[in-house]
Structures are given as structure tokens and as C-alpha cells.
């Protein structure tokens, strides 16, 4: 699948950093899918799903999910919490969280500091509509 931030010929990415990661994966010919799966991580008393985790990318050849986080610390905390639940509930599923420092390191490695400046000017990582209003589960046991 080819990266396209506009959504005209591919998925509409929530953030420019996701489109950039998709371009990197395309460049090195690593197959990817954008938000292909949704994992329920919280249910109410009647068994209805109240919160999900939808990792940004799935790399089918490697069987690995990738989740990007960028700037907002509140979103990072939220994603860390979701990831802990994800790992608790779906231990066989491999998910890697890329933090802002990881993305920055990628941009430094590829000499894309100009792009990094653009992303730093943006306002964090767009929250998924699926989870924006969902209740927050409590912390999983360690």
C-alpha cells in the first residue's frame, strides 16, 4: 500500500508522522496495513466493549503492529496504558510503540530534520475517534 497523507489514493493518516513512516516502509518494500485491526481492551458490566486499541500499522510479513506517538505527553500516557492492557489481554500479539524520540531518531538517521521541524510544529498525534470519548479502564495488574 502506498503512503498518501491526503487519503486520495490510500488511507487518510491521522498525523504526518504516520504518513512519513508509511513512506519509509514503502521505500524499503516492507508491506503494511493502516489500522487494520481493532482490539477491545475494556468492557462494561453488560459485556459491551467500551474501549479499543487500534494500532496504527500492521506489518504482515513480520507479524508486528506499530503504534506511533508523537508530542503530547497526555496521549503518550494514554497509549502506554492501552498498550499495557493490550499486552495483558493479547499476549501473543506483538506491538511496538514508537515514541517521539524514536521517530526523531529515524528522521535524524535519514537526514529529514526539515520534516521533523514541520512535525514538531504540528499539534501532536490525532486521537482516534473510536477512543476519544470512551471511558478509561483502570490499570492492569503488573
Amino acid at each position: 500500500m502506498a503512503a498518501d497523507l491526503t487519503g486520495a489514493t490510500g488511507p487518510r493518516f491521522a498525523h504526518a508522522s504516520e504518513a512519513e513512516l508509511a513512506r519509509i516502509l514503502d521505500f524499503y518494500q516492507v508491506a503494511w496495513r493502516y489500522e487494520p485491526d481493532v482490539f477491545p481492551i475494556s468492557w462494561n458490566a453488560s459485556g459491551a466493549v467500551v474501549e479499543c486499541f487500534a494500532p496504527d500499522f500492521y506489518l504482515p510479513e513480520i507479524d508486528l503492529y506499530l503504534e506511533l506517538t508523537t508530542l503530547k505527553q497526555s496521549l503518550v500516557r494514554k497509549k502506554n496504558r492501552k498498550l499495557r492492557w493490550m499486552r495483558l489481554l493479547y499476549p501473543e500479539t506483538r506491538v511496538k510503540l514508537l515514541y517521539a524520540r524514536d521517530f526523531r531518531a529515524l528522521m535524524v538517521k535519514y537526514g529529514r530534520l526539515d520534516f521533523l521541524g514541520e512535525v514538531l510544529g504540528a499539534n501532536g498525534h490525532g486521537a482516534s475517534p473510536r477512543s476519544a470519548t470512551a471511558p478509561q479502564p483502570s490499570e492492569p495488574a503488573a
Partner: protein
Amino acid sequence: MTIHDDVQEVLLTEDQIRGRVAELGVELAHDYSDRQPVLVSVLKGSIVFLADLIRATELPLSVDLMELSSYGAAMESSGQVRILKDLSGSIEGRDLIVVEDIIDTGLTLNYLLRYLHERTPASVHICCLLDKPARRLTDIHIDYRGFTIPDRFVVGYGLDFDEHYRNLPYIGVLRPSVYGGAEPRT
């Protein structure tokens, strides 16, 4: 002002590198004692490691080099990795040892391995000087590993930033101020 001034910390000294490269050479010579491997390396970062490794490996080996376009440099042209310099000889039926300076995301190596396997070598093994697993985005099995390093931006001994620092004789952590980065949290 010298290139050393941009180094925040020496991660691996010349002596440490020399000692480990010598050990890797002995390991390779032992494991390939009945074969004549081709050491395939990717320009430019691996050249210093390759030069020292082949001199530490007492085998009738041969060397071949490749160069691949990297993502950032190719932003204005093709959207996919290109082979800027291909292998000089056939590798069909040969035993390959891919010599890498550093494996972080593994994306380049992942591409390279697919390319090499299509040319039906007898075997392919990987020898890298530095393994930075924190950055890995692919599944790569490393057969011979010099050092596992933390998630720091390293230069020297062939590794560059913006084509500089390759000639440092040690592996050093580059000052974040040089590349406009922030120090990773530990």
C-alpha cells in the same frame, strides 16, 4: 576544534573494537574452515569494519560490495530503495557473510537479504559490529555480533553523521547539539 570535540562520550574504545573484531575473525575462520565465503558489505559505513575483519579472518575468502540508496537522500527521486552499486560477481551457490556496521531498524538489511536470497546463494549469515535492538522494526537473526549497544546516536569507525566522523578510530556518542536532537531519556 576537532571532530573529537563533537563526541559526548566514547562508547567503545579502539582496544575494545580491535579485540572483539579479532574474536569475530577467529569465530568466522572456525565456522567456515571448510568453505570459501564471500563477505558482502554495504557501502559506506561498513568499510572500516570490513577492512579490519577480513584481516582478522584467516580464510580464503573473497569480498564484494554493494551500495543502496537511503531513504532521506532519495526523497527527491524514486520512492523505493535503489541499488547504486550491485555485486561484482555471481553469488549463486556461494556461502555469504553479510558484514554490517550497525543494525538498528533492520529495514535496509531486510531489503538486502531478500535481494541476496533471490540470487540463490548456498547460505547467508550476518555479521554486524553493532546491534541496536531498541530500534528494530524487522525480524533479523544476527549470527555474529560485535557489541549490543544502547539507544544512542553513535559515530566513528565508519559510521557517519552527514558524511562526517567516519574516520574516528573509536565508536562515540555524538553530542545531540550536533544534529539538533535531545538527549534520550535513560
